């Protein structure tokens, strides 16, 4: 009986998580330009619209470029920092660990507003590259967490052996450390990439008036005129996120990244 209860509970939570997405998926295949559900007719033209319509296509490219660059910059900040904290005993350097975690932990409006006042004061407000830096700082937490986890998982005796054989820090990093932390590097990048793709408030407050990312475009459409393209973009985003996370699970240990002990367990 209790197993039946479990299933019912899981089905209920699953339904709760899926229902808005089911409705949105239904809306996205409407034949005409209405947000009707159940959908009237069937058409995939709203998916084609993402790539055909100039506005949506530009927004898609803006979002993709922003996500690719900012996730790379986030990793570039997180990697040396987490390496240093692993390699050196320097308690005061933990301040930077804390600074790396803070932007993501505080309410996002605060980071967004801080960056808005900063870019406005320095006179760079509205430049597309400010969004890249802003997103990198906002999402640096993710690679920082995965990389810190990756470094703690390294068996120090391996590194010790390399050092005894006369390898210097640079060689050890390239030949021993880097191969071991690559899965954590990739997943950290992937988390930052997906979240940057979806991010709205920081992008809006930094470049909202000069550049349209997909979330900004959806928000503007929400205010100034609904179109089923909003729904097809949403479905595209969910599918993209699911594919990327599935790849992490396929080629890495997703559960360990999320805090489980190790692969052998259960």
């Amino acid at each position: 009986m209790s197993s039946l209860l479990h299933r019912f509970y899981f089905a209920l939570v699953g339904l709760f998580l899926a229902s808005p997405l089911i409705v949105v998926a239904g809306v996205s295949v409407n034949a005409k330009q209405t947000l009707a559900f159940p959908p009237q007719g069937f058409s995939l033209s709203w998916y084609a619209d993402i790539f055909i319509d100039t506005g949506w296509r530009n927004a898609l490219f803006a979002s993709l470029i922003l996500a690719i660059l900012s996730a790379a910059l986030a990793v570039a900040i997180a990697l040396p920092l987490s390496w240093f904290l692993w390699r050196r005993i320097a308690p005061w350097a933990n301040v930077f660990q804390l600074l790396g975690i803070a932007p993501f932990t505080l309410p996002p409006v605060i980071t967004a507003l801080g960056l808005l006042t900063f870019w406005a004061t320095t006179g760079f407000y509205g430049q597309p590259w400010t969004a890249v830096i802003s997103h990198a700082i906002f999402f640096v937490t993710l690679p920082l967490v995965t990389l810190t986890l990756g470094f703690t998982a390294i068996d120090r005796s391996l590194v010790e052996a390399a050092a005894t054989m006369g390898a210097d820090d640079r060689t050890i990093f390239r030949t021993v450390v880097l191969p071991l932390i690559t899965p954590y590097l990739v997943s950290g990048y992937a988390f930052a990439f997906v979240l940057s793709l979806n991010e709205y408030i920081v992008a809006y407050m930094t470049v909202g008036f000069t550049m349209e990312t997909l979330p900004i475009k959806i928000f503007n459409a929400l205010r100034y005129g609904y179109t089923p393209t909003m729904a097809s973009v949403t479905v595209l985003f969910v599918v993209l996120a699911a594919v990327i996370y599935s790849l992490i699970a396929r080629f890495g240990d997703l559960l360990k990244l999320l805090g489980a002990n190790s692969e052998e367990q259960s």
Partner: protein
Amino acid sequence: MRREAPQRLSDYGPLAFPAIMLTVFFVIPFGTMIAVSFFQRQQGGFYTPAFVFSNYERFLSLFFAHVLGFSLMLAVLVAVCCVAIGVPFTYLMTKMSRRAQIVWMVALLSVLSLSEVIIGFAWSTLLSRTAGITNLMVTLGLMDTAVALSPGFPAVLTAMVYQALPYTILVLYPALVRLDPTLTEAARTLGASPLKAFFTVVVPALRTTILATLIMVFIFALGSYLLPQILGRPQHWTLSVLITDQAIYQSNMPFAAAMAVFLVLVTLGMVALTLFAGRKREETT
């Protein structure tokens, strides 16, 4: 290789880039925001350097007290709902096969990645009259006519729980997956029903975790900046919504900054208070 203290200045080299980036683009912007909160607003959306408290004085109004009270109440409610749903869910999930856990985690992460814009859009569609869930009810013969379920407080609460639930589960997961399984086994051997074992053994063992999760979800919910705006009426606007509104649409940066500083203080204050209360309770028991 053992960890060593840096000996030469060049040993600090790798720290330079991260330290500069985080200082210039996080610490300084944070400082700029605090500075702007004391600036004087000019007509037309500009502001000039000054040291005035007028932006903070505006907090002393009934309207602001209402917004603050509502924001805190909503965040607490969301945190309680999410933990109430999330604790049994996460506990049962850790008992599933690795494969099933991975499938659920991919689904949860995908929902968690959605921006508030998309969640707001999805729920406003689900709750609307033309495309909403009530149409399904009409089709099934459960209702006579389709109705709009948003805007309103239930819509705001539901969407915010939707947004925060995956986060709650991810925060709970590490603690629950490492929970000693012999604890419940012992309780079961002694004759407790699974439900009783859960409430008398698992929940008390996780008291600290649950408290910490409540705080984290509370802060998460406090940060929700769009859902109350999309799915609620103006009286459902929270502090975060008001900050965005002042900064973008009213072009009153000093006031927005003052509210943001206030939000940071409220957030930190609530955390300190809860930690303090938790310690006090542990001392007495």
